[in-house]
């Protein structure tokens, strides 16, 4: 790994990472504030808006959950925690490789005595660090806020499992973004594939939840590896977690490999 390149990334992108973590913490606190242990009547509240039931289902707002972990799994980890980090690291992944190649500044790095493998590896490690930072900041925010607002109600092991699952999911999806950023030498295609494919997955994931007719769609998206309720409830998740970890690492490795092999217009 190149320390100089890693630090340069940090200087260029720490603001984006910090802002994303901040917004995520804000969302979390808003959702948490809606929880009422005596009357988990949020379903009733949403129903009063006369929203069609399939729409509620698409966002995962259809389950009657009473305890805090289930509530968070359904209302925060069911959609917001999937979509929001994705947007910020899809953008970041594109900036870390494809944008530097397109602009030509990658030449500054590669004309130094640094191999392409080392260069791409450094960028990959940086992206993973950012993803881990986002999930970790949510985890800590959650632990602190829940303790402050609803002391004793949060099941800590379940909550940690929930976040570990989210981390692995985002490792896998950011791997996809990273791979396309390494594969393409222009930001147009890197962004189109790197963010387009995950967004398509999210849409399929939402569609699959709207009713039994479309339920089979869930097998087309990697989001089915992360059923937040299962992680929160302590159901066996080892296989899914291992699958996400393995495909994540594989995608990162594939990104480094294509970057090593490709023609660079520098």
């Amino acid at each position, binding site marked *: 790994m190149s320390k100089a390149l890693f630090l340069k990334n940090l200087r260029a992108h720490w603001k984006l990472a910090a802002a994303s973590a901040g917004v995520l913490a804000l969302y979390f606190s808003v959702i948490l504030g809606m929880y009422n242990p005596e009357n988990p009547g949020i379903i009733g509240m949403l129903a009063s808006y006369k929203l069609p039931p399939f729409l509620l289902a698409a966002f995962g707002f259809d389950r009657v959950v009473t305890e805090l972990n289930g509530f968070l799994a359904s209302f925060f980890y069911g959609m917001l925690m999937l979509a929001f980090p994705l947007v910020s690291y899809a953008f970041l992944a594109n900036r870390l490789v494809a944008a*530097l190649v397109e602009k030509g500044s990658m030449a500054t790095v590669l004309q*130094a005595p640094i191999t392409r493998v080392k260069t791409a590896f450094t960028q990959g490690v940086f992206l993973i660090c950012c993803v881990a930072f986002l999930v970790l900041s949510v985890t800590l925010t959650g632990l602190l806020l829940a303790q402050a607002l609803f002391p004793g109600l949060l099941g800590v092991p379940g909550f940690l499992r929930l976040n570990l699952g989210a981390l692995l999911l985002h490792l896998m999806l950011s791997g996809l973004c990273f791979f396309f950023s390494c594969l393409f030498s222009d930001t147009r295609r890197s962004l189109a594939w790197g963010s387009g494919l995950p967004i398509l997955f999210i849409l399929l994931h939402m569609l699959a939840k709207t009713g039994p007719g479309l339920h089979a769609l869930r097998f087309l998206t990697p989001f089915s590896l992360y059923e937040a309720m299962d992680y929160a409830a302590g159901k066996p998740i080892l296989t899914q977690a291992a699958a996400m970890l393995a495909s994540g690492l594989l995608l990162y490795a594939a990104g480094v490999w294509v970057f090593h092999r490709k023609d660079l217009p520098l």
Partner: protein
Amino acid sequence: MAEIVLDRLTKRFGENKGVFGLSFEVGSGEAFGFIGPNGAGKTTAIRHLMGFLNPDAGTCQIRGMDCRTQAASIHRDLGYVPGEIGFFDEMRGEEYLRFCERIRKGSFARRKRDLLERFELDASGRIKKMSKGMKQKLGLISAFLHDPGVLVLDEPTSGLDPLMQARFVELVREEKKRGKTLLISSHSFEEIEKTCGRVGILKEGRLVAVRSSEELDAARRRVFSLTFASERAAEAFEAEGFETVLRSGRRLDVAVTGELAPFLAALPRHPVTGLDAPRQTLEEAFMRFYGERANDE
């Protein structure tokens, strides 16, 4: 000993684009010029030397190391100026140079100061706000910063004013004297002739000739634009037998290849009221190599 060796290097980007069977050598301590119009394949060849492209066939080596597979080792002692330099948007000029030092794990404070002074560059501002000339200077400084033994420069003086071009020529001459090996590409011969001993002429991805710059200068075809007192006088000059490029009214453009003496001797015999030497393209100056059936070697 040959420092840079290209051996039948081939890279196809579709019909007639790329480089085809390109072979040449650059010796240690030599400055080799590489001229050709835009699209002739200069940048493609240079990208292979930097290890950025995978050849379809053939090889290129620097100091006996393969440019593609041993790029990192080669780059330890190599400086590069890309044809289009890309910087990091968010940086200031100074930060960029510091980054170049850090990524090479070195500190070149004295050399940096000398180069900044030589090119009269104030590197404290944001790169985004710099003019094209300033960016070019910054790119040049970063290539020479670590005092490398081999320099690969793709159109190094583009965007520089004449004074800075002269400074660059001076720098290249000094480096050559210190035993550095240089490969410099350009689309104008004037840029190359002051610095390079040998020049390769590239046409449509193929090397059509390698000559000393003296030989090339002698083979150069110069066009002069003359204006006469009358149309009659222009016609009379045409009868002197020089190659006419264009005649319109009192104006006559003639081309002279090699020796200028006969042309200069003819001038006082006619009522010449104006003499101009318009800027020429490479193809015009070296029609011999760029003509349709150019097969010089």
